[in-house]
């Protein structure tokens, strides 16, 4: 698996296709998180901005290889493992931007509540922001995996499904990503940072299950 991850990472970094999603994420942060914005609001925004980043990166990773090259790797490692490596590479490559975004928010936002009256402890707030980033990273990767090959083929359908997936993750209260973002926004009102244990606990098995199902399908469909 290490060899596959190295290969996929080399492929992704060498193809430079990681650049547009990462630039989009950076742009979101710069525009959305001005200096002096309330820290928990800013963490909520930074976490939500990870969703399009990870969905896009996952699409890049699973479609990066030409079919013949994919066949060579799938023969050597098995199609399911080859696909899993591509998805994991997307999550791993999204990790440095996610950490950088969290650090950016921690450094440049105002550690106070929404109305700038109640002071917020920066350390627990950063821990909450990091947990929210992990939840969004996992779910974004899983949704990216579900919206692309081998489930949906072509370009138009996967891209539209990915966009829709981002919206679906943020809007309803059921999604763990939405829960962490809402939790942070609510915390920002009162100036208290509550660790999002429940969404974190839900996001890990949910995304693992989705990715496992997609990899199983990759072995069936090729």
């Amino acid at each position, binding site marked *: 698996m290490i060899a596959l991850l190295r290969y996929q990472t080399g492929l992704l970094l060498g193809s430079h296709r990681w650049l547009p999603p990462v630039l989009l994420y950076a742009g979101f942060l710069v525009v959305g998180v001005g200096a002096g914005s309330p820290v928990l609001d800013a963490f909520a925004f930074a976490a939500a901005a990870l969703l399009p980043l990870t969905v896009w990166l996952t699409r890049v990773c699973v479609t990066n290889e030409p079919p*013949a090259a994919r066949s060579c790797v799938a*023969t050597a490692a098995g199609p399911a493992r080859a696909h899993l490596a591509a998805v994991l590479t997307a999550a791993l490559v999204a990790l440095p931007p996610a950490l950088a975004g969290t650090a950016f928010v921690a450094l440049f936002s105002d550690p106070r509540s929404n109305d700038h009256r109640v002071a917020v402890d920066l350390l627990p707030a950063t821990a909450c922001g990091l947990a929210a980033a992990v939840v969004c990273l996992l779910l974004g990767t899983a949704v990216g995996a579900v919206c692309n090959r081998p489930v949906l083929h072509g370009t138009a359908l996967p891209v539209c499904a990915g966009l829709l997936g981002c919206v679906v993750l943020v809007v309803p209260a059921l999604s763990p990503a939405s829960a962490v973002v809402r939790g942070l926004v609510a915390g920002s009102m009162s100036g208290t940072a509550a660790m999002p244990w429940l969404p974190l606990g839900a996001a890990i098995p949910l995304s693992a299950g989705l990715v496992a199902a997609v990899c199983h399908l990759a072995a069936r469909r090729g």
Partner: protein
Amino acid sequence: MRLDGVGRRYGVRGPWVVRGVDLDLPQRALVRVEGANGSGKSTLLRLCAGIDRPTTGRIRGRPRTAYVPERFPPALPFTALGYLTHLGRVHGLRGPAAARAAGVWLERFGAAGHAGTPLSALSKGTSQKVAVAQALLAAPELLVLDEAWTGLDAAARGELDRAVAERVADGATVLFVDHDPRRLAGAADACHRIADGRLRPAPQPSDAADRPAEAGPRVTVHAEPPGAGGELPGELPGRPVTVREPDGTARLTVPAAYSDALLRALLTARPPWHIRTVAAPAGPRSESPAGGCGAVPDAGEPDGGTAALGAVPEGSAPRAATGPAPAGSASPAVTSPAGTEGGSR
């Protein structure tokens, strides 16, 4: 490895591409699959390689497998050596061993000069060499070749023939498709034809030695046993047609692709045999393979070296023949055991 009642269709209501395939792929076998365009050859090969899973039936006992696609895309952001090193690791080699094997295989296919070239800058033929090297560098137990010879130059085609023979001699299974009926002619252990999605045994010149015209280029090795009347080692590569001379020596005739593997087996046998001569068969037989292939513009590939070897006068000083005989375009690995063998005697 065995395929039992394997069928494959794409989509729930799609037509069956292949159906009811029972196929035995034993170890140490070279298996050819024939069929018209679109008959399902590639699908069958992808099933055997494990890229696709059968819709019905099952495949059991797939060993470590490598696959060569028909067209290898150059659109990967690696150099040739970098890509092969990555793939070597994916195939299970350790880092330094992967890089070494990558260099060796590029060298064997005459692409060592392109090791540092980005894949996107390679010609079609050179990127096909990379595809072939990718499959061979970890010595797979099952090698699946989907028209892997397409786009290779004559020297590389001959080298691939020999590499295939080497894998089979090492006990691996090689499954291949090629549109050239002379490809490894007479060397295949089994031949199957796919038509209407069904797989049937194809007529195969199994007793190829009797019909040299169909057998493809062949090479005869005249070898001397280590002691008086020594028995030949069992399981010689290429199932040689053996004639024992009254003086105890043996004349072994194999498909040209197997000549190196046969020499290696004889020279590394314990105790080692002594090679007297290596030659294309004398008499009318030598006409058909050499002449038949020479008449075709792009041929002369596997027997380019061996036809020249026919000029080695039989019965000339045996020790002298040992050195130059397997050389020519043959791999250096053959000459080196010959050297050690000569020195040890």
